[in-house]
């Protein structure tokens, strides 16, 4: 398990991976991948009980992570590669013909670490609820984690799952939201008037934790607090406040980098701001 300083170093490398992958692919979603990088790094290198050894889609005897916001594929692929699920050199194939690293996560192409396809939004939370329910039925002690985008939370199905999970006592489920406040067409509040997510999740019967999604100690503490939800009968939602495009000055805090690839010059500029800590792929 990595300590805080190690996690920060991994996160820096993951951001480099994201920039290089999306630049090479000439398309993709760097903004949300970078806002959720610190959380995803903490999850895979400290929080989750997971291992690439003998990995199967059943998730038996392991914690599981379901990506609901499928366009955040770049950050998922980078942490999976860095955690040893597949060779890091494969990251360079993102979005290329014949690659296991599809534009949005797929299970058809057999990429280890991916439990379920994602891309059409609002569905992964339900999948995670089902996976967590199965673990309860099988008296397994593990958790299921799921990442939702704040824009994604506009989907009605999210709130169907929100009502279902506490009703069925799914307290081994830890959902978290990358609350960066941006979506393709603008700020989340200007597009959809989403308002205070905390009040909404509480009203649906969830434990709600808020934390700074770029403060590694705060992230780890939030996940620890979330784990204490087991036995309460309630699922937990962690609302991580984040900045889209975090870590690169010209990409931070704007929806313009939701789904746009950097130019080669922008890529160079970005990489100058991110330390190469583990060796580029």
């Amino acid at each position, binding site marked *: 398990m990595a300590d805080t300083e190690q996690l920060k170093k991994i996160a820096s490398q993951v951001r480099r991976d994201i920039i290089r992958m999306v630049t090479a692919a000439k398309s993709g979603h760097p903004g949300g991948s970078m806002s959720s990088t610190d959380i995803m790094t903490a999850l895979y290198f400290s929080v989750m009980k997971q291992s690439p050894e003998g990995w199967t889609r059943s998730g038996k005897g392991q914690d599981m992570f379901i990506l609901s916001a499928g366009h955040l594929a770049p950050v998922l692929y980078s942490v999976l590669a860095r955690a040893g699920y597949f060779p890091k050199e494969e990251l360079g194939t993102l979005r290329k013909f014949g690659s296991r690293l599809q534009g949005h996560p797929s299970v058809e192409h057999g990429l280890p670490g991916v439990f379920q396809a994602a891309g059409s939004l*609002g569905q992964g939370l339900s999948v995670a609820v089902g996976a967590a329910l199965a673990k309860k039925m099988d008296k397994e002690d593990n958790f299921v984690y799921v990442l939702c985008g704040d824009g994604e939370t506009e989907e009605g199905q999210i709130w169907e799952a929100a009502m279902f999970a506490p009703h069925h006592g799914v307290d081994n489920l830890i959902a978290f939201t990358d609350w960066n406040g941006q979506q393709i067409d603008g700020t989340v509040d200007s597009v959809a008037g989403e308002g205070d997510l905390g009040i909404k999740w509480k009203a649906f019967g969830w434990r709600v934790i808020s934390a700074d999604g770029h403060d590694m100690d705060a992230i780890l503490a939030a996940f620890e607090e979330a784990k204490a939800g087991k036995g309460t009968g309630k699922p937990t939602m962690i609302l991580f406040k984040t900045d889209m495009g975090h870590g690169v000055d010209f990409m931070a805090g704007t929806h313009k980098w939701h789904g746009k690839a950097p130019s080669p010059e922008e890529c160079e500029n970005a990489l100058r701001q991110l330390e190469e800590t583990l060796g580029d792929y």
Partner: protein
Amino acid sequence: MKKYIDTGKKDTRSGFGAGLLEAGKADKRVLALTADLKGSLKMGDFASAFPDRFIQCGIAESNMVGVASGLALAGKVPFIGSFAEFVTGRVYDQIRQEVAYGHTNVKIASSHAGITLGEDGATHQTMEDIALMRALPGMIVINPCDYNQTKNATIAAAKVDGPVYLRFGRPSVPNFTPENEPFEIGKAYVLNEGKDVTIFATGHTVWEALLAAEALEAEGICAEVINVATIKPLDEKTVTASAFKTKAVVVAEEHNSAGGLGELIAGVLAKRRPTPMEFVNGADKFGQSGSPAELMAAYGLDAAHIAEAARKAIARK
């Protein structure tokens, strides 16, 4: 022609309920999920026998599909049940991503399919579901014809590894197939051998096809009747061989013309054995309120219309 005895009218959805109970007894991985339609889907016996394996999802079909796929990841065999429209059209994208593209072992139990749902009217009478489910790569599509076959098909669906769309209906209809005949997925059942015309039928139209064949027999026409209980994968061998033999084909289905069994068989025969064909289906129209029998007649799906289509097909030889 071969005689089929109606052993007493029963609804096919009760066949599903009975099959689900049997599947549940045979395999503890089998689960049942519903979106507030436990009674309509006849899941009550399963829920009483296995309360820990019955999951009430409330009126939230999209979530039900996702939850089922998550359960399937762990090796469960979830059956999700609702009315045909709400478990296909309403959740097409969820089924596409989480079940078909996601390759999860989810069984879609689709009741009240077609126009024979009756009085509730067109909002509930889906005539497009076969088209939607057929279009999904890897989806098995089964449309059994009576209580016994629906029960046996349910048991078979639980055993096969992969997504299955199982379509059945609301009204009581003749029950005439063997009680405990194991259902073979992918087999078209030849119910009556004939030489003048082949009537391919599926679901509720199979009994109507048998009645039509009886009427045709009185006119000296010997009709082959084939129950296409599995629409996908289609038993192309049986279909092609029969069309080659009779050289005239009718396809009868309680479904829209677009994307149904008729187009499917036409596609196969166009490639392998071009044959004069007539189609008995819901055309390209929405349904309306009425009794099942009234609607089957008004929309041209009953035995009289099938027999007339057979005469037309023969005349085109």
